[in-house]
Protein backbone atom coordinates (compact mmCIF):
# COMPACT_ATOMS: atom_id res chain seq x y z
CA UNK A 1 0.00 0.00 0.00
CA UNK A 2 2.69 2.45 1.00
CA UNK A 3 4.40 1.95 -2.35
CA UNK A 4 1.33 2.68 -4.44
CA UNK A 5 0.20 5.85 -2.69
CA UNK A 6 0.92 7.90 -5.79
CA UNK A 7 -1.28 5.68 -7.93
CA UNK A 8 -4.14 6.17 -5.49
CA UNK A 9 -3.43 9.90 -5.42
CA UNK A 10 -3.38 10.07 -9.23
CA UNK A 11 -6.61 8.09 -9.63
CA UNK A 12 -8.34 10.11 -6.91
CA UNK A 13 -7.29 13.38 -8.54
CA UNK A 14 -8.43 12.27 -12.02
CA UNK A 15 -11.78 10.98 -10.70
CA UNK A 16 -12.25 14.20 -8.75
CA UNK A 17 -11.42 16.41 -11.70
CA UNK A 18 -13.63 14.39 -14.07
CA UNK A 19 -16.66 14.54 -11.79
CA UNK A 20 -15.91 18.02 -10.50
CA UNK A 21 -15.07 19.26 -13.97
CA UNK A 22 -18.44 18.15 -15.31
CA UNK A 23 -20.55 19.18 -12.30
CA UNK A 24 -18.96 22.06 -10.42
CA UNK A 25 -19.80 25.64 -11.26
CA UNK A 26 -18.03 27.46 -14.05
CA UNK A 27 -18.19 31.12 -15.07
CA UNK A 28 -20.70 31.99 -17.82
CA UNK A 29 -18.88 33.31 -20.86
CA UNK A 30 -20.05 34.14 -24.33
CA UNK A 31 -19.12 31.69 -27.13
CA UNK A 32 -17.38 29.35 -24.69
CA UNK A 33 -20.48 28.57 -22.62
CA UNK A 34 -20.26 25.09 -21.16
CA UNK A 35 -17.38 24.05 -23.42
CA UNK A 36 -15.10 25.82 -20.95
CA UNK A 37 -15.19 22.55 -19.01
CA UNK A 38 -12.99 21.09 -21.73
CA UNK A 39 -10.17 23.12 -20.18
CA UNK A 40 -9.96 20.46 -17.46
CA UNK A 41 -9.29 17.75 -20.05
CA UNK A 42 -7.50 19.55 -22.89
CA UNK A 43 -4.74 21.39 -21.03
CA UNK A 44 -3.75 18.51 -18.65
CA UNK A 45 -3.01 16.36 -21.74
CA UNK A 46 -0.17 18.73 -22.63
CA UNK A 47 1.15 18.58 -19.10
CA UNK A 48 1.10 14.78 -19.30
CA UNK A 49 2.84 14.88 -22.67
CA UNK A 50 5.59 17.25 -21.50
CA UNK A 51 6.13 15.12 -18.38
CA UNK A 52 6.49 11.95 -20.44
CA UNK A 53 8.77 13.47 -23.06
CA UNK A 54 10.96 14.89 -20.27
CA UNK A 55 11.17 11.43 -18.70
CA UNK A 56 12.15 10.08 -22.10
CA UNK A 57 14.98 12.62 -22.49
CA UNK A 58 16.14 11.88 -18.94
CA UNK A 59 16.46 8.18 -19.73
CA UNK A 60 18.08 8.87 -23.10
CA UNK A 61 20.79 10.87 -21.32
CA UNK A 62 21.09 8.10 -18.76
CA UNK A 63 21.46 5.55 -21.56
CA UNK A 64 24.30 7.48 -23.17
CA UNK A 65 26.10 7.66 -19.84
CA UNK A 66 25.53 4.07 -18.72
CA UNK A 67 24.51 2.01 -21.80
CA UNK A 68 21.86 0.11 -19.85
CA UNK A 69 19.22 -1.53 -22.08
CA UNK A 70 16.50 -0.82 -19.53
CA UNK A 71 17.00 2.92 -19.91
CA UNK A 72 16.49 2.65 -23.66
CA UNK A 73 13.25 0.75 -23.12
CA UNK A 74 12.08 3.38 -20.65
CA UNK A 75 12.88 6.16 -23.12
CA UNK A 76 10.94 4.59 -25.98
CA UNK A 77 7.94 3.61 -23.85
CA UNK A 78 7.59 7.10 -22.40
CA UNK A 79 7.68 8.48 -25.94
CA UNK A 80 4.94 6.03 -26.93
CA UNK A 81 2.69 7.10 -24.07
CA UNK A 82 3.59 10.76 -24.64
CA UNK A 83 2.45 10.46 -28.28
CA UNK A 84 -0.89 9.04 -27.10
CA UNK A 85 -1.29 12.01 -24.76
CA UNK A 86 -0.41 14.49 -27.48
CA UNK A 87 -2.94 12.91 -29.86
CA UNK A 88 -5.59 13.06 -27.11
CA UNK A 89 -4.66 16.72 -26.57
CA UNK A 90 -5.07 17.41 -30.29
CA UNK A 91 -8.43 15.60 -30.37
CA UNK A 92 -9.87 17.40 -27.33
CA UNK A 93 -8.55 20.64 -28.80
CA UNK A 94 -10.09 19.89 -32.20
CA UNK A 95 -13.50 19.17 -30.67
CA UNK A 96 -13.29 22.33 -28.61
CA UNK A 97 -12.23 24.28 -31.70
CA UNK A 98 -15.28 22.97 -33.61
CA UNK A 99 -17.63 24.49 -31.05
CA UNK A 100 -15.83 27.76 -30.41
CA UNK A 101 -13.83 28.63 -33.53
CA UNK A 102 -16.06 26.83 -36.04
CA UNK A 103 -13.74 24.20 -37.52
CA UNK A 104 -12.02 21.12 -36.20
CA UNK A 105 -8.74 22.27 -37.69
CA UNK A 106 -8.60 26.05 -37.53
CA UNK A 107 -5.00 26.41 -38.71
CA UNK A 108 -4.12 27.90 -35.38
CA UNK A 109 -0.37 28.06 -34.75
CA UNK A 110 -0.57 25.85 -31.71
CA UNK A 111 -2.47 23.16 -33.60
CA UNK A 112 0.02 23.25 -36.47
CA UNK A 113 3.09 23.24 -34.25
CA UNK A 114 1.81 20.40 -32.11
CA UNK A 115 1.22 18.38 -35.24
CA UNK A 116 4.85 19.04 -36.23
CA UNK A 117 6.04 18.07 -32.74
CA UNK A 118 4.19 14.78 -33.10
CA UNK A 119 5.92 14.30 -36.47
CA UNK A 120 9.21 14.79 -34.65
CA UNK A 121 8.49 11.88 -32.36
CA UNK A 122 7.17 9.74 -35.21
CA UNK A 123 10.53 10.39 -36.87
CA UNK A 124 12.16 9.11 -33.69
CA UNK A 125 10.15 5.89 -33.92
CA UNK A 126 10.93 5.52 -37.64
CA UNK A 127 14.62 6.00 -36.87
CA UNK A 128 14.39 3.23 -34.28
CA UNK A 129 12.78 0.86 -36.76
CA UNK A 130 15.40 1.53 -39.40
CA UNK A 131 18.26 0.12 -37.32
CA UNK A 132 18.47 -3.60 -36.68
CA UNK A 133 21.30 -3.86 -34.22
CA UNK A 134 19.89 -3.35 -30.75
CA UNK A 135 22.68 -1.37 -29.09
CA UNK A 136 23.29 0.81 -32.09
CA UNK A 137 19.58 1.53 -32.29
CA UNK A 138 19.44 2.49 -28.63
CA UNK A 139 22.42 4.81 -28.90
CA UNK A 140 21.48 6.60 -32.11
CA UNK A 141 17.84 7.06 -31.15
CA UNK A 142 18.87 8.37 -27.72
CA UNK A 143 21.05 10.96 -29.46
CA UNK A 144 18.23 12.00 -31.79
CA UNK A 145 15.82 12.18 -28.86
CA UNK A 146 18.08 14.55 -26.93
CA UNK A 147 18.79 16.60 -30.06
CA UNK A 148 15.08 16.93 -30.86
CA UNK A 149 13.85 17.83 -27.39
CA UNK A 150 14.98 21.50 -27.37
CA UNK A 151 13.33 21.92 -30.79
CA UNK A 152 10.10 20.47 -29.42
CA UNK A 153 10.24 22.94 -26.53
CA UNK A 154 10.80 25.81 -28.97
CA UNK A 155 7.91 24.59 -31.14
CA UNK A 156 5.37 24.17 -28.39
CA UNK A 157 6.32 26.75 -25.79
CA UNK A 158 8.22 29.58 -27.48
CA UNK A 159 7.06 29.97 -31.08
CA UNK A 160 3.30 30.25 -30.37
CA UNK A 161 4.06 33.24 -28.15
CA UNK A 162 5.77 35.01 -31.06
CA UNK A 163 2.84 34.67 -33.44
CA UNK A 164 -0.89 35.31 -33.54
CA UNK A 165 -3.03 32.55 -32.18
CA UNK A 166 -6.67 31.94 -31.42
CA UNK A 167 -5.64 30.42 -28.11
CA UNK A 168 -6.08 32.56 -25.03
CA UNK A 169 -2.88 34.18 -23.82
CA UNK A 170 -1.37 34.46 -27.33
CA UNK A 171 -1.19 37.18 -29.92
CA UNK A 172 -3.05 39.83 -27.96
CA UNK A 173 -5.84 37.55 -26.74
CA UNK A 174 -6.24 37.82 -22.99
CA UNK A 175 -5.10 34.73 -21.10
CA UNK A 176 -7.47 32.64 -19.09
CA UNK A 177 -5.70 33.77 -15.95
CA UNK A 178 -6.36 37.43 -16.49
CA UNK A 179 -10.07 37.64 -15.93
CA UNK A 180 -12.12 34.52 -16.28
CA UNK A 181 -10.24 31.71 -14.58
CA UNK A 182 -11.83 32.16 -11.19
CA UNK A 183 -10.93 30.25 -8.05
CA UNK A 184 -13.65 27.63 -8.66
CA UNK A 185 -11.93 26.61 -11.88
CA UNK A 186 -8.45 26.69 -10.37
CA UNK A 187 -9.59 24.23 -7.70
CA UNK A 188 -10.26 21.69 -10.46
CA UNK A 189 -7.65 22.65 -13.06
CA UNK A 190 -4.49 22.42 -10.95
CA UNK A 191 -5.32 18.99 -9.47
CA UNK A 192 -6.07 17.88 -13.04
CA UNK A 193 -2.53 18.82 -14.13
CA UNK A 194 -1.01 16.72 -11.37
CA UNK A 195 -3.52 13.88 -11.69
CA UNK A 196 -3.14 13.36 -15.44
CA UNK A 197 0.66 13.59 -15.22
CA UNK A 198 0.66 10.86 -12.58
CA UNK A 199 -1.71 8.70 -14.68
CA UNK A 200 0.58 9.17 -17.68
CA UNK A 201 3.56 8.11 -15.61
CA UNK A 202 1.62 5.10 -14.35
CA UNK A 203 0.67 3.99 -17.88
CA UNK A 204 4.30 4.34 -18.88
CA UNK A 205 5.56 2.14 -16.00
CA UNK A 206 3.02 -0.54 -16.97
CA UNK A 207 4.05 -0.34 -20.63
CA UNK A 208 7.68 -0.59 -19.59
CA UNK A 209 7.02 -3.67 -17.45
CA UNK A 210 5.09 -5.38 -20.25
CA UNK A 211 7.90 -4.69 -22.72
CA UNK A 212 10.63 -5.91 -20.40
CA UNK A 213 8.65 -9.11 -19.73
CA UNK A 214 8.22 -9.62 -23.49
CA UNK A 215 11.95 -9.20 -24.01
CA UNK A 216 12.84 -11.87 -21.48
Amino acid at each position, binding site marked *: MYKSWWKILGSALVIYTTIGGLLLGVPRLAILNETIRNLYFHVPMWFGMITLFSISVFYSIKY*LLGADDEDDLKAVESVNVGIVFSILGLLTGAIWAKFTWGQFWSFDVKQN*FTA*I*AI*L*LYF*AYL*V*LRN*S*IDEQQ*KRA*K*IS*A*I*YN*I*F*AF*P*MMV*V*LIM*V*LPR*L*SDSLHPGNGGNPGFNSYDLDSRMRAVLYPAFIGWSIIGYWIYTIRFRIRSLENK
Partner: protein
Amino acid sequence: MQFVKEVRHLLYKEVMLEWRSKYAINSILLYVVSTIFVCFLSFKSIEQKITWNALFWIIMLFASINGVSKSFLQESKGRQLYHYVLASPGAIILSKTIYNVLLMVGLTSIALVVYIIIFDYIPPDLPMFYVSVILGSLSFSTIFTMVSAIAAKAGNGGMLMAILSFPLIIPVMIILIKLSKNAIDGLDRSVSLDEIGMLIFINVITVCASLLLFPYLWRD
Protein backbone atom coordinates in the same frame (compact mmCIF):
# COMPACT_ATOMS: atom_id res chain seq x y z
CA MET B 1 44.44 25.09 -27.56
CA GLN B 2 44.87 21.61 -28.94
CA PHE B 3 41.16 21.63 -29.80
CA VAL B 4 41.39 24.89 -31.75
CA LYS B 5 44.38 23.57 -33.64
CA GLU B 6 42.55 20.36 -34.55
CA VAL B 7 39.52 22.29 -35.74
CA ARG B 8 41.70 24.56 -37.84
CA HIS B 9 43.53 21.68 -39.48
CA LEU B 10 40.37 19.72 -40.17
CA LEU B 11 38.70 22.79 -41.59
CA TYR B 12 41.70 23.41 -43.80
CA LYS B 13 41.50 19.80 -44.96
CA GLU B 14 37.80 20.10 -45.81
CA VAL B 15 38.30 23.31 -47.77
CA MET B 16 41.35 21.87 -49.52
CA LEU B 17 39.53 18.70 -50.54
CA GLU B 18 36.62 20.74 -51.84
CA TRP B 19 38.89 23.14 -53.67
CA ARG B 20 40.62 20.30 -55.49
CA SER B 21 37.51 18.64 -56.84
CA LYS B 22 35.04 21.55 -56.58
CA TYR B 23 32.38 18.86 -56.73
CA ALA B 24 30.08 20.04 -53.92
CA ILE B 25 30.21 23.71 -54.84
CA ASN B 26 29.57 23.19 -58.51
CA SER B 27 26.89 20.55 -58.10
CA ILE B 28 24.88 22.52 -55.54
CA LEU B 29 25.32 25.71 -57.51
CA LEU B 30 24.05 24.00 -60.63
CA TYR B 31 21.20 22.49 -58.62
CA VAL B 32 20.14 25.86 -57.18
CA VAL B 33 20.42 27.78 -60.41
CA SER B 34 18.56 25.17 -62.44
CA THR B 35 15.84 24.96 -59.78
CA ILE B 36 15.42 28.72 -59.84
CA PHE B 37 15.26 28.59 -63.61
CA VAL B 38 12.68 25.82 -63.60
CA CYS B 39 10.63 27.87 -61.12
CA PHE B 40 10.93 30.91 -63.35
CA LEU B 41 9.80 28.96 -66.39
CA SER B 42 6.76 27.64 -64.54
CA PHE B 43 5.83 30.82 -62.64
CA LYS B 44 6.86 33.38 -65.32
CA SER B 45 6.43 36.23 -62.83
CA ILE B 46 5.38 36.29 -59.20
CA GLU B 47 2.83 38.93 -58.32
CA GLN B 48 2.58 38.11 -54.63
CA LYS B 49 5.67 38.81 -52.60
CA ILE B 50 4.73 36.13 -50.04
CA THR B 51 5.04 33.52 -52.77
CA TRP B 52 8.36 34.99 -53.88
CA ASN B 53 9.65 34.67 -50.33
CA ALA B 54 8.30 31.17 -49.71
CA LEU B 55 9.65 29.88 -53.01
CA PHE B 56 13.11 31.23 -52.20
CA TRP B 57 13.18 29.44 -48.85
CA ILE B 58 11.89 26.17 -50.28
CA ILE B 59 14.63 26.21 -52.91
CA MET B 60 17.21 27.01 -50.19
CA LEU B 61 15.87 24.22 -47.98
CA PHE B 62 16.30 21.53 -50.60
CA ALA B 63 19.63 22.88 -51.79
CA SER B 64 21.05 22.84 -48.28
CA ILE B 65 19.65 19.39 -47.49
CA ASN B 66 21.44 18.10 -50.59
CA GLY B 67 24.59 20.05 -49.90
CA VAL B 68 25.02 19.43 -46.19
CA SER B 69 23.95 15.79 -46.16
CA LYS B 70 27.11 15.04 -48.13
CA SER B 71 29.28 15.86 -45.15
CA PHE B 72 28.87 12.52 -43.42
CA LEU B 73 26.89 10.39 -45.84
CA GLN B 74 29.50 10.48 -48.58
CA GLU B 75 32.61 9.90 -46.57
CA SER B 76 34.17 6.46 -46.68
CA LYS B 77 34.33 4.42 -43.47
CA GLY B 78 38.10 4.19 -43.67
CA ARG B 79 38.65 7.90 -43.90
CA GLN B 80 36.27 8.52 -41.00
CA LEU B 81 38.16 6.02 -38.89
CA TYR B 82 41.39 7.79 -39.77
CA HIS B 83 39.98 11.12 -38.62
CA TYR B 84 38.71 9.66 -35.39
CA VAL B 85 42.15 8.35 -34.57
CA LEU B 86 43.77 11.71 -35.25
CA ALA B 87 41.34 14.21 -33.74
CA SER B 88 38.80 14.54 -30.97
CA PRO B 89 35.16 13.98 -32.03
CA GLY B 90 34.21 17.49 -30.95
CA ALA B 91 36.78 18.95 -33.33
CA ILE B 92 35.44 16.81 -36.18
CA ILE B 93 31.81 17.89 -35.82
CA LEU B 94 32.78 21.52 -35.25
CA SER B 95 35.03 21.65 -38.29
CA LYS B 96 32.35 20.04 -40.45
CA THR B 97 29.76 22.48 -39.15
CA ILE B 98 31.99 25.51 -39.82
CA TYR B 99 32.82 24.20 -43.29
CA ASN B 100 29.15 23.70 -44.07
CA VAL B 101 28.31 27.18 -42.78
CA LEU B 102 30.96 28.69 -45.07
CA LEU B 103 29.76 26.61 -48.01
CA MET B 104 26.11 27.45 -47.48
CA VAL B 105 26.68 31.16 -46.88
CA GLY B 106 28.59 31.36 -50.16
CA LEU B 107 26.05 29.36 -52.09
CA THR B 108 22.96 31.08 -50.74
CA SER B 109 24.51 34.48 -51.45
CA ILE B 110 25.05 33.50 -55.08
CA ALA B 111 21.59 31.96 -55.20
CA LEU B 112 20.04 35.15 -53.84
CA VAL B 113 21.70 37.22 -56.53
CA VAL B 114 20.53 34.82 -59.25
CA TYR B 115 17.03 34.70 -57.77
CA ILE B 116 16.79 38.49 -57.63
CA ILE B 117 18.03 38.86 -61.20
CA ILE B 118 15.81 36.16 -62.68
CA PHE B 119 12.60 37.19 -60.93
CA ASP B 120 13.48 40.85 -61.22
CA TYR B 121 12.47 41.91 -57.75
CA ILE B 122 14.58 43.49 -55.00
CA PRO B 123 13.29 43.41 -51.41
CA PRO B 124 12.95 46.98 -50.09
CA ASP B 125 15.13 46.24 -47.09
CA LEU B 126 17.86 44.22 -48.84
CA PRO B 127 20.44 44.28 -45.97
CA MET B 128 17.83 42.87 -43.57
CA PHE B 129 16.83 40.22 -46.12
CA TYR B 130 20.49 39.32 -46.49
CA VAL B 131 20.78 38.98 -42.69
CA SER B 132 17.92 36.49 -42.78
CA VAL B 133 19.66 34.62 -45.62
CA ILE B 134 22.90 34.43 -43.59
CA LEU B 135 21.05 33.28 -40.48
CA GLY B 136 19.13 30.78 -42.59
CA SER B 137 22.22 29.17 -44.07
CA LEU B 138 23.77 29.16 -40.58
CA SER B 139 20.79 27.33 -39.05
CA PHE B 140 20.41 24.92 -41.97
CA SER B 141 24.10 24.00 -41.72
CA THR B 142 24.22 23.48 -37.96
CA ILE B 143 21.07 21.36 -37.85
CA PHE B 144 21.65 19.34 -41.02
CA THR B 145 25.27 18.55 -40.15
CA MET B 146 24.28 16.79 -36.94
CA VAL B 147 21.27 15.10 -38.53
CA SER B 148 23.40 13.84 -41.40
CA ALA B 149 25.82 12.39 -38.85
CA ILE B 150 22.90 10.57 -37.20
CA ALA B 151 21.47 9.42 -40.55
CA ALA B 152 24.89 8.22 -41.73
CA LYS B 153 25.32 6.13 -38.59
CA ALA B 154 21.83 4.67 -38.96
CA GLY B 155 22.83 3.27 -42.34
CA ASN B 156 20.22 4.23 -44.93
CA GLY B 157 21.01 7.76 -45.88
CA GLY B 158 18.83 9.99 -48.02
CA MET B 159 15.35 8.96 -46.96
CA LEU B 160 16.12 9.01 -43.26
CA MET B 161 17.85 12.36 -43.61
CA ALA B 162 14.64 13.96 -44.88
CA ILE B 163 12.41 12.33 -42.27
CA LEU B 164 14.67 13.28 -39.39
CA SER B 165 15.48 16.82 -40.43
CA PHE B 166 12.13 18.18 -41.67
CA PRO B 167 10.38 18.33 -38.31
CA LEU B 168 13.53 19.89 -36.82
CA ILE B 169 13.87 22.52 -39.52
CA ILE B 170 10.21 23.59 -39.69
CA PRO B 171 10.38 25.89 -36.62
CA VAL B 172 13.51 27.52 -38.06
CA MET B 173 11.80 27.91 -41.46
CA ILE B 174 8.80 29.59 -39.85
CA ILE B 175 10.98 32.14 -38.07
CA LEU B 176 13.08 32.70 -41.20
CA ILE B 177 10.08 33.28 -43.42
CA LYS B 178 8.70 35.74 -40.88
CA LEU B 179 12.02 37.56 -40.66
CA SER B 180 12.43 37.85 -44.42
CA LYS B 181 8.77 38.85 -44.76
CA ASN B 182 9.50 41.75 -42.42
CA ALA B 183 12.35 42.74 -44.73
CA ILE B 184 10.10 42.48 -47.80
CA ASP B 185 7.42 44.60 -46.15
CA GLY B 186 10.12 47.10 -45.29
CA LEU B 187 9.18 47.14 -41.61
CA ASP B 188 11.29 48.94 -39.07
CA ARG B 189 14.33 46.83 -38.18
CA SER B 190 13.59 46.84 -34.46
CA VAL B 191 10.53 44.68 -35.21
CA SER B 192 12.77 41.84 -36.40
CA LEU B 193 15.06 41.73 -33.36
CA ASP B 194 12.86 39.06 -31.70
CA GLU B 195 13.30 36.68 -34.63
CA ILE B 196 17.04 37.32 -34.96
CA GLY B 197 17.54 36.63 -31.25
CA MET B 198 15.44 33.47 -31.50
CA LEU B 199 17.46 32.16 -34.47
CA ILE B 200 20.78 32.85 -32.74
CA PHE B 201 19.46 31.11 -29.63
CA ILE B 202 18.41 28.04 -31.65
CA ASN B 203 21.83 27.92 -33.33
CA VAL B 204 23.71 28.14 -30.04
CA ILE B 205 21.60 25.30 -28.60
CA THR B 206 22.09 23.19 -31.73
CA VAL B 207 25.86 23.64 -31.77
CA CYS B 208 26.12 22.91 -28.04
CA ALA B 209 23.95 19.80 -28.40
CA SER B 210 26.05 18.63 -31.38
CA LEU B 211 29.29 19.10 -29.45
CA LEU B 212 27.93 17.23 -26.44
CA LEU B 213 26.27 14.39 -28.38
CA PHE B 214 28.67 13.67 -31.21
CA PRO B 215 31.32 12.03 -28.99
CA TYR B 216 28.70 9.37 -28.17
CA LEU B 217 27.66 8.98 -31.78
CA TRP B 218 30.89 8.28 -33.61
CA ARG B 219 32.00 5.23 -31.62
CA ASP B 220 30.73 1.96 -33.11
